[in-house]
């Protein structure tokens, strides 16, 4: 009895400052499970699917996780995503230079993030409510500029699209069925590494943790908490815009409902990855692993020929189990 108690205590002690551990273990467990139970799981196309389809939302998740560590939410990422795609497509169709179009889209999405940040820090309205409102408002803007319908880019794909999201055909064509690897995976990994480094090794990253963990203490230590929060919101907006542009480089079209529900998937991924809702604790890497886990779950269930409707229920179950484990391991209650 006592040895079990000490074992658990040792576990908690060891993993208290590794927020990613639950997500890694879960990912590994699920991977092993599907390798055995699902046919064709360990095939190039299946693995490629998981990586590629997780990468777009994954970039958004990276931003959301940083914001969550800073103690705030952003429920407007889905709508922001849609607007960025519309701005990108419509600028391209209007004949604007591709790079300029992309920059415009990024400017708009970062601007939306800025608006979120300013409202939250200036008026004191909780970010949950603010971004709930801006989620609806930005969705309305997406509908308005898109005239309520699809916007498709029908011209010849510019070189920029290749840079953003070309298919890795050299590898893909080696397999049958051809795998679905795309450049977006590289962007995802690159941004994840950069952000994790910033978070863990720079003063700015420290500030993020401090602002989320104990804003009062942080302020008294000279951390410009308001600025940190606003910058985190802008970062989320920027990353969302980038993810959106990358997706458009592949899909070439956007619809008024693009991105609906993205915010909750992002929160789920972050939480599975170890982030605490109250802020001050979490990890970019863990959130990425959480996103991969969710995507792996979806692909695995399809491979097992199970009804797609249980995907949501299983995600919910995994979410709860992961959160309970994370809370327990990190010693917070």
């Amino acid at each position: 009895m006592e040895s079990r108690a000490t074992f658990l205590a040792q576990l908690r002690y060891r993993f208290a400052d590794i927020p990613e551990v639950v997500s890694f273990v879960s990912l590994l467990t699920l991977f092993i499970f599907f390798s055995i139970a699902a046919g064709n799981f360990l095939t190039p196309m299946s693995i490629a699917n998981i990586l590629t389809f997780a990468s777009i939302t994954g970039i958004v998740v990276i931003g959301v996780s940083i914001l969550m560590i800073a103690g705030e939410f952003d429920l407007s990422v889905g709508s922001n995503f849609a607007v960025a795609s519309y701005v990108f497509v419509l600028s391209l169709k209007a004949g604007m230079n591709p790079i300029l179009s992309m920059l415009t889209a990024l400017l708009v999405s970062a601007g939306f993030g800025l608006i979120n940040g300013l409202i939250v820090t200036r008026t004191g309205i909780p970010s949950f409510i603010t971004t709930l409102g801006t989620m609806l408002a930005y969705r309305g803007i997406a509908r308005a500029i898109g005239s309520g319908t699809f916007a498709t880019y029908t011209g010849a794909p510019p070189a920029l699209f290749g840079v953003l999201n070309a298919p890795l055909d050299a590898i893909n064509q080696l397999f049958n069925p051809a795998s679905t690897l795309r450049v977006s995976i590289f962007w995802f990994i690159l941004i994840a590494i950069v952000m994790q480094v910033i978070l863990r090794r720079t003063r700015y990253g420290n500030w993020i943790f401090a602002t989320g963990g104990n804003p009062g203490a942080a302020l008294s230590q000279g951390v410009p908490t308001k600025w940190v929060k606003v910058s985190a919101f802008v970062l989320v907006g920027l990353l969302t815009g980038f993810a959106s542009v990358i997706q458009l480089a592949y899909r070439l079209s956007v619809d008024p409902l693009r991105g609906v529900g993205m915010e909750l998937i992002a929160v789920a991924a972050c939480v599975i990855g170890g982030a605490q809702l109250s802020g001050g604790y979490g990890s970019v890497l863990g959130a990425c692993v959480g996103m991969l886990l969710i995507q792996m779950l979806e692909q695995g269930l399809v491979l097992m020929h199970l009804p797609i409707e249980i995907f949501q229920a299983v995600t919910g179950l995994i979410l709860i189990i992961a959160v309970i484990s994370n809370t327990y391991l990190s010693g917070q209650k």
Partner: protein
Amino acid sequence: MNKFIRSAMLVVVCALMLNACAPATPPPTAPPTIPPPTTAPAQAPQPTAVPPTAVPPTVAPTKAPAPTVAPTAAAPAVDPNKKLKLVMVQHALCAWDSFWCVVQKGIETAAKQMNIEVTVLGPDKFDLEKTATLIDQATAAKPDGIGLTVTDAKLFKDPINRAIKAGIPVVAYNAGSGPDKDGIPYLTYIGQDEYQGGYLGGLRMIAAGGKKGVCINQQVGHAGLDLRCKGFVDAFASKNLKAAVLGITDDPAQSQTTISDYATANPDVDAFLTLGPNGANPFYAWLKASGKKAGDVKHGTFDLSPEIVTHIQDGSTLFGIDQQPFLQGYNAVMSLALLLRQNVSPALPVTATGPGFVDKTNVAFVKALAGQYR
């Protein structure tokens, strides 16, 4: 440290053992006799066609030969008992769009009769990007055949081509315009000509006295639904009348409010076209709540459902345009089965299942079947 690693390895080994001991996928229930699919249950009654006063250029089946499927084996084998695993990828599911429950019934009936394992995939709300993703995920499962809805030919072109190149035969149902028009070499499109349906429906409503129309679209961006509204608006325009498109959602409560407010803001609109049960349901709720009498407004809809049939019978709905969803689902499975087992390919790029107009004159026939087989 050692204790921990040992425990972890124990957990992993146990997981592996548990999975190895997990029961295999359940064997098929039906005995392996496959009756040749004769007539699908509930064959189409003789739908009354509108006397073609002004019929738009229809989608005539092209003279080009039917696209051949990528060769799967050296010599085509005939195996009537071959065990098949099919995947259907749809842009909508029975869970949130009742039209698809009838399609599902067709798929399940065919699967049971022909002893095939079929999985139906779809997004949990109208999301074409997600649907495109599901096509790729289905391909990774290496099924024997894929049936899917070509709701946006441009978006789906890439994933469908990947599946075809991998040697998986693909059949389109419910949404699409045929392999030639869509530019994707799938086998055939099993469904109706959407534009024609909207156009003929519009003409019917004008013939019944409609002066200003609105096409209520609950899935704006669905190429087929957009075509229906286009046909409707063009029909009104051909008679120098006005018609517009109103976008609603798949949420009935919100949609009812939108319709109600639109009607208040545009009181001269008297011809309403809904594009399916998800559109008709909030429309009927609004009609009931607004206290209007049958005959105040003209209503026509696509597809059938129990309540639509009831309203056709009492005259408050002029017609339901039946694309025979049961047939679409059934035929999709059947086409793939015929190809994979008997090497029989579909003859034409477009296998039409509609549009058939169900109105007061022939509704009695379909009444018992609505929502189930029609």
